[in-house]
């Protein structure tokens, strides 16, 4: 935690790092503490100045702000704007921050009042439509995943310290799935979003024999039209496709091609 960092004779600055969370399960932050084997090296690489979940000290000067969670209430916009002002690099950490995550499933309902009532009854509660960070501030870097892969954050932070550009894989999960020698889940009778989802998770789910739900959002050349056809061929209906595509919000920009005309899936409900 001291001494000048350098690599191949090039002096490196240890960035001041802050972790912040909006609406989320805080799992992505926790993934950092889950890096047991390399945690201490990691802590030597950066200077953590703000990490509410793990430490009491805090400071408002930081180079890199990792922001987890999505925006679901007005006051979070203010906090986010504040963080943006203080940070040189703002990183959207995890699918909630990148796409809205599971939180945005709430947006399926047009009627926010119904949503509130369903959970809180008549008790007054404040909320709004769920948004990813980029809807309000400039995001410099996205780390996808629900949850994020700890190895990936480590690599990204190391690269940032070294001044290397951060590249995400542009190809879909199938590449990693095949490299893991898995038998395709479609052949085993289960649906999977692997063909259209951005890789980088090392086919986390499919290697555990569970179909991909697209938590990392679309791959660079995602062929949604063909995916739909495949789902159909293997006997899954349109609803199953939508069920997965809408889960983490990453495919929102494809909504107009795949999802039914109006963005929000209408749910028939008796007025309660």
């Amino acid at each position, binding site marked *: 935690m001291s001494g000048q960092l350098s*690599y191949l004779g090039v002096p490196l600055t240890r960035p001041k790092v802050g972790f912040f969370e909006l609406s989320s399960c805080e799992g992505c932050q926790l993934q950092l503490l889950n890096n047991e084997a390399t945690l201490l*090296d990691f802590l*030597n690489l950066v200077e953590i100045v703000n990490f509410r979940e793990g430490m009491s000290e805090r400071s408002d000067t930081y180079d890199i702000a990792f922001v987890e969670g999505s925006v679901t209430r007005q006051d979070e916009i203010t906090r986010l704007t504040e963080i943006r002002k203080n940070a040189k690099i703002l990183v959207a950490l995890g699918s909630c921050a990148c796409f809205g995550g599971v939180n945005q499933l709430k947006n399926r309902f047009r009627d926010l009042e119904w949503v509130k009532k369903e959970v809180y009854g008549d008790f007054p509660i404040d909320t709004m439509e769920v948004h990813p960070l980029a809807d309000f501030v400039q995001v410099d870097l996205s780390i996808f995943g629900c949850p994020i892969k700890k190895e990936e954050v480590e690599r990204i932070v190391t690269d940032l310290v070294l001044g290397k550009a951060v590249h995400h894989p*542009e190809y879909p999960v199938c590449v990693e799935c095949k490299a893991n020698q898995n*038998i395709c889940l479609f052949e085993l*009778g289960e649906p999977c979003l692997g063909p259209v989802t951005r890789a980088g998770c090392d086919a986390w789910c499919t290697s555990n024999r569970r179909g991909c739900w697209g938590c990392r959002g679309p791959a660079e050349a995602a062929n949604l039209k*063909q995916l739909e056809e495949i789902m159909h061929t293997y006997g899954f209906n349109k609803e199953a496709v939508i069920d997965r595509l809408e889960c983490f919000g990453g495919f929102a920009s494809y909504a107009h091609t795949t999802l039914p005309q109006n963005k929000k899936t209408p749910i028939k409900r008796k007025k309660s």
Partner: protein
Amino acid sequence: MIFKVFKKEELARLHELLAVNIIVGPVSKGNDRNGKPLYDFDVTYDFNELALDYTQTVHSPKRFVLPYHETLSTFSITRDGWKKHVDLNVYRPLVFFGMHACDINALNKLDLVLAQSTYPNPYYMGKRKNLFIIGMGCNPEPQCFCRSMGTDSVLHGFDLFLTDLGGKYFAEILSATAFDLLTQLTCQDPSAKDLALYKHATKEKSKRYTATVDTSDLTKILDLEFESTAWDAWGEKCLSCGTCANVCPTCYCYGVDEHVDPDLKHASKIKSLHSCNLIDFAKVAGGHNFRPTSASRLKYRYYHKHRGFVEAFEESLCVGCGRCGAACLADITPPEVIASVRGKE
């Protein structure tokens, strides 16, 4: 070549003799959703695990010579410099028990570029040279078009090749080590009847191929049809997922990534198999992509296999195993693609 025959029961004995080594062979991986059995190559410990009557494995055996990810070198970084450590990642021989002709032919093709041309690749060669291969006659599957590619039988690149003659195996022996091994079994020289049976079996097998590819003049036709709209139609279906290349026994293209460990004291250089169907395959610094459309990438895969490789090595880089077509979720199969480019749908 030397031929022998031995009783089927002797095969277990052969396995037992080789069991001091690591043995890889076809094993069952359950059934697919339609109840069709699935197979793959894996390390086995027991003769009974081997599914020698397998149809075809889902993945090709190439990962044993070309791992999907391989550390080419590691570095230790010090204050005043660095050291590079190279490890070929091969430590012991491997026995391949029951490889089909197409997969052996695939290795022979890989040899052409990876072992027999300029700059032989030691990572590949180290593993390839340490394979002891027992080949095994196959049962053609509907997707197999190896006969069109001339790879339904294999002439070299193995130690021993077995053909099922009913109660016996007909053995083609290609290496001294294999010959030595067989002396420990009860073997006979093939009788005239055995030879007749062998020829009959081969002929019967030939009749069972259903998929074909017209390879006549294919290199030239590909050149002529470079602008064919057939490519666009396939490109529209293609998922750019690289599954075809990953299951292919001969696709060997790769990319290299370098990583520094968070302690800044260690670094590594890792090779990963890549595929020409992946979007960033031909992207260069600054972002220019020489093949931005999936049609151009898909086309390229066929060009490399059926034109470029032929020009360089007088044979195509495809053994007709049909795995890519079987694995492609978009149902893009070489027989259909080539037929459409030839203009006969």
